[in-house]
């Protein structure tokens, strides 16, 4: 009998939606360069523009406000690099406005880019979060000055799922004339988003988190906001991102977004019920657990939990042996010596951070998967604690 396989690591990446897979297969023969004027090029162009329109409509933007990138990380790098640029007398020169305001729980692609810019003289302020991962609104508001170029805050956190009040934060940035960017890679396609309503200047999204292909992301840039490309040397994307378009990726992203608009509302109710069942099941079956992230203001598909006396990589690998895939905030799994910066920023004690796992559900998961996990997890935790130096059976 083949072993049951349960994929619960959808915040890392997602399987292709069958409709996306179909669209990709259909599009495989499409090799024309969208920049070419002949028929081959025109066909490729029309397909990529069709996808652009779908994506724009999905987040309430105009098609020309969407720039395709190679990843969400590239989109985030692009936004920060504009602000940190010391050049003057070019289209996006904003005088002395180079200060970056961001938070302590951003994705490494934001933190490391900010860190690199900081090393080159760009002032950066990192705003702390509370025990649930909610950004300190007062501290953020107070940190924005006349020199602040951009405020960058992720909409939904990849590790704990906590969702920020982006609309309010964007208001703070605009009060002082700064731009507002949100990394919405984990939020797009899971919660309703309208860029006009949120009033953000930049928004990052990625295809492979929403059942699309890898290697394709998009950056929303509000019309009228000055922009400078990170990848130069071509007129593609209206001169804002050089490089021949990843037509296949773009088509896949377009289809993925189309399927999200059809499925996400129904799914959200299902995830709420599954997350509640998981939380309750874990609490009832396993002693000494701690749930991380905000209890309500968070993604319905993400549950982060710590087990006292059990190390995360061990939990992950024992679950893997049962065919269950999750991720962990433990240092051991990442090859570094420090556990998750997100958990530490929310005040989770170091040993609890080492003992955390993230369960992230996707469209293919059912209550049967929840039951299977709840069937296996208590035994695994008991087994690890049984050989642990820091946890004795009571």
């Amino acid at each position, binding site marked *: 009998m083949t072993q049951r396989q349960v994929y619960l690591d959808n915040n890392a990446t997602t399987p292709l939606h069958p409709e996306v897979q179909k669209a990709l297969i259909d599009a495989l023969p499409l090799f024309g360069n969208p920049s070419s004027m002949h028929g081959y090029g025109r066909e490729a162009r029309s397909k990529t523009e069709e996808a652009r329109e779908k994506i724009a409509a999905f987040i309430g933007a105009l098609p020309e406000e969407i720039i395709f990138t190679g990843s969400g990380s590239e989109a985030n790098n692009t936004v920060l690099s504009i602000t940190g640029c010391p050049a003057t007398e070019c289209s996006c020169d904003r005088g002395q406005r180079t200060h970056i305001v961001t938070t302590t729980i951003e994705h490494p692609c934001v933190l490391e880019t900010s860190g690199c810019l900081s090393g080159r003289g760009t002032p950066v302020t990192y705003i702390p979060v509370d025990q649930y991962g909610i950004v300190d609104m007062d501290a953020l508001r107070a940190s924005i000055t006349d020199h602040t170029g951009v405020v960058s805050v992720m909409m939904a956190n990849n590790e704990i799922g906590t969702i920020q009040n982006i609309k309010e934060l964007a208001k703070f940035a605009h009060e002082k004339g700064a731009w507002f960017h949100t990394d919405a890679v984990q939020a797009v396609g899971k919660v309703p988003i309208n860029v006009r309503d949120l009033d953000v200047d930049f928004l990052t999204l990625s295809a492979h988190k929403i059942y699309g292909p890898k290697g394709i992301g998009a950056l929303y840039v509000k019309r009228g906001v000055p922009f400078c490309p990170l990848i130069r040397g071509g007129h593609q994307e209206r001169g804002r991102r050089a490089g021949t378009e990843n037509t296949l990726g773009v088509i896949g992203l377009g289809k993925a977004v189309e399927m999200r608009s059809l499925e996400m509302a129904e799914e959200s109710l299902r995830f709420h019920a599954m997350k509640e069942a998981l939380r309750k099941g874990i609490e009832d079956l396993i002693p000494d657990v701690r749930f991380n992230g905000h209890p309500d203001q968070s993604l319905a598909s993400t549950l982060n939990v710590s087990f006292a006396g059990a190390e995360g990589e061990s939990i992950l690998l024992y679950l893997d042996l049962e*065919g269950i895939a999750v991720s962990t905030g433990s*240092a*051991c799994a990442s090859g570094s*010596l420090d556990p998750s910066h997100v958990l530490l920023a929310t005040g989770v004690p*170091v*040993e609890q951070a*080492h003992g955390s796992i993230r369960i992230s559900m996707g469209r293919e998961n059912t209550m049967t998967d929840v039951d299977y996990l709840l069937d296996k997890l208590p035994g695994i935790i008991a087994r690890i604690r049984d*050989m*642990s*130096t820091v946890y004795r059976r009571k």
Partner: protein
Amino acid sequence: MSAHQSWAYTEQVKDHFVNPRNVLREENYEEDGKGLVGNIQCGDEMLVLIKVDRNTDTITDCKWRTYGCASAIASTSAMSEIVIGMPLDEAFKVGPKQITAALGQLPNNKIHCSVLGDKALRAAINDYYERNGRHDKVVREQARVVCTCMNVTDLEIEEAVLEGARTFLELQEQTKMSTVCGKCRDEAETLLKVYMQKHFG
């Protein structure tokens, strides 16, 4: 899904991880020597208990508990198998090289997980000698300062090698040694070779 043909680590690591040997389960185990090293803040902690035949100074039993990742669990388990039946003098010299060999290798960034097992064992052996008043047999790891500017010792250099430093630059990055006057560079390069040979052959 066909993705599970191979595992994250070797089959030997998997075997020890799934069927750990000699785990301490008794609540009233009467050990002759006890060693506890590491700490959970850093993500791993190991407890090693040994029973010793006093006539022959040979380890007759070795039990352990480990808080840590799969490599840490497998390393302690493999170490316990290696040292049971071994004279103390020989067991004292067991190091990461033998343990990782028994596990069919560990990735470089996991070598440090195997270090704690034998460290805990040495602590247990020292404890046994101390309990029996044989203080002359106790071997303490004595640190010697190599880099006087940054106060970095030979033990810290060894630790850095076990943590993955393979070049002088990596050693510098990890320990901050030789970043001021630079006089210790030659000695650092020599020690780097010595410890790489000692632990990785």
